[in-house]
């Protein structure tokens, strides 16, 4: 897994609530057997119409908004457990998703792929969203060590929560499999102890 410590970037504002993983990556693109290529179909049915033409009113098709941070409405990533959603966001080039609420499974999937979900307050999200929409050049800083998100030159900043184990994993780029395998003897003992 890629390490993550600090990021400064502009952001793409996705001012929609309850974005479910079926929107992030529709089911018909889940036929692959590897993790590559999902970025192309990220938000497929919002980005493109049935004929494959770009939908100009969708924010990701606007040249104005770029960057590796996606700022999205409340309850991001609900629905299907498909990790393909995290692979699609990653594949497209996002490194951080900011929202006021994340669905459980999505949050776990993101963390397992070095994609950082930053959960902020409703108030902060609103201000941030307004700022970015108004000024697409707005630079945002994410400092994982300090657990802070701040907007350059505005004083707008907030701390975010993250499980300290997961934080270490991200900073050092190691994953749960490494850890669990190191505990194999303990797991075997547990199996033997059961009725």
């Amino acid at each position: 897994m890629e390490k993550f410590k600090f990021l400064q970037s502009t952001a793409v504002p996705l001012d929609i609530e309850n974005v479910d993983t079926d929107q992030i990556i529709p089911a018909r693109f889940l036929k692959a057997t590897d993790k590559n290529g999902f970025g192309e179909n990220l938000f497929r049915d919002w980005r493109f119409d049935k004929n494959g033409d770009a939908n100009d009113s969708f924010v990701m098709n606007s040249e104005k908004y770029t960057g590796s941070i996606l700022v999205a409405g409340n309850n991001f990533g609900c629905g299907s457990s498909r990790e393909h959603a995290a692979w699609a966001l990653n594949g497209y080039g996002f490194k951080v998703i900011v929202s006021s609420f994340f669905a459980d499974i999505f949050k776990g999937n993101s963390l397992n792929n070095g994609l950082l979900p930053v959960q902020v307050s409703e108030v902060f999200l609103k201000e941030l969203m307004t700022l970015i929409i108004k000024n697409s050049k707005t630079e945002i800083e994410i400092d994982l060590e300090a657990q802070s998100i701040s907007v350059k030159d505005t004083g707008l900043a907030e701390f975010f929560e993250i499980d300290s184990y997961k934080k270490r994993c991200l900073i050092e780029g190691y994953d749960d499999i490494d850890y669990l395998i190191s505990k194999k003897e303990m797991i075997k003992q547990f199996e033997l102890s059961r009725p």
Partner: protein
Amino acid sequence: MTKTLFDKVWDSHVIDTIEDGPQILYIDQHLIHEVTSPQAFNELEERAIPIFRPKQVMATADHNTPTINQHLPIKDELSRNQLNQLSINCDKNGITLYDLGHKYNGIVHVISPELGITQPGMTIVCGDSHTSTHGAFGAIAFGIGTSQVAQVFASQCLLLSKPKSLRITVNGKLKNGALPKDVILYIISKLGTNAGTGYFCEYAGDVFRNMSMEGRMTVCNMSIEMGARGGMVAPDETTFNYLKGREFAPKESVFDKKINNWKTLASDEGAVFDKEYFFDASDIEPMITYGTNPGMGIKVSEKIPKVNDASFQKSLAYMGFQQGESLIGKPINYVFIGSCTNSRIEDFRIAANYVKGKKKADNVTAWLVPGSRLVASQIIDEGLKHIFDAAGFKLRQPGCSACLAMNDDKIPQGEYCVSTSNRNFEGRQGQGARTILSGPLVAAATAIEGKIIDLFKTRN
């Protein structure tokens, strides 16, 4: 100390706790399917890690399978490849696979219970969010991502922080015609789609006590639609009677011994939950959804609410509905009875009972997709197929089908589909398709009438 049902099962599976971090939770049963497993197999292969407990893994092909002509090679190359990959992976690793055509094949959340693999007190995971279904047996069952599938492959464990506890109690007697699906759609319409996030939910009260196992599965299935990782019902005689004699359920004296243990799986008197909700059964009526998330539900007899909110408006625009309007009388061209929510034998009995002696409306395409081969044979054995055939319904072969439209079972752009599945997200049943969730009774009635009717009015 008093414990909840959830505490009892969870705590007995914790191997260790990382300081300031998650716990190592032991997983009894791992279920896999073709869509969310290949990358996990690859990961292990690349890292030269063997599958730790292949006997505790069960595989099926369901998401990406056709529901007609299953005996022929699959036409779509990518789908065929994904299924091949699953069978190669299972072969290589000594995992039991109920592949397409096998007599036990079907939707993962339908076959594991019906084969007796799902049992009380277990921890069960699958790379599929509706794994919550198995909680109906008093198991802790939840969906996981593919990275976690790889973790369980490697260690039969997961690193997790213990969720908070939530209890939903529904007491009283359900009205005639109000089904388990209506109960859960009602609850989600009241609580919203993220009320359960971070929680594991226990369903308690008369309504769930009196419910069949099929009904409890329907309810637990949709726990994820209110954000909860899973739902549970304490096991009781209904559970034990359901399990007895099933293919992989414990036999004879072992079964009796197990029952003694399973009987302890209930929340202690006075156990404290982090959050509780109470509902009255008599408030529940047949439900439908009008929007693009499962929380946007109303009683069939009610009108779409008026809400001044951009996401709400966007959702109604997608559905082509107006605020304040009633859905009664809306013409409907597609009806889907299927999915891991409502594709068990009980659901087809309910539908057949209503359909008997009637004919479906000419405008309607009605798909019946059983949850498993076993359910399909039961439909035939019980004579339900005759009823459906005579009414003009198409009985297809088992699979996820139009629930997620990964195969050819897609609803066309702009068309409405009254569906017994669990998600009405934009495009879920096909690009531009508009899904209205309901129980099997409302779905059957819609197919007969060709429009939504207030069934309840005619029944009570």
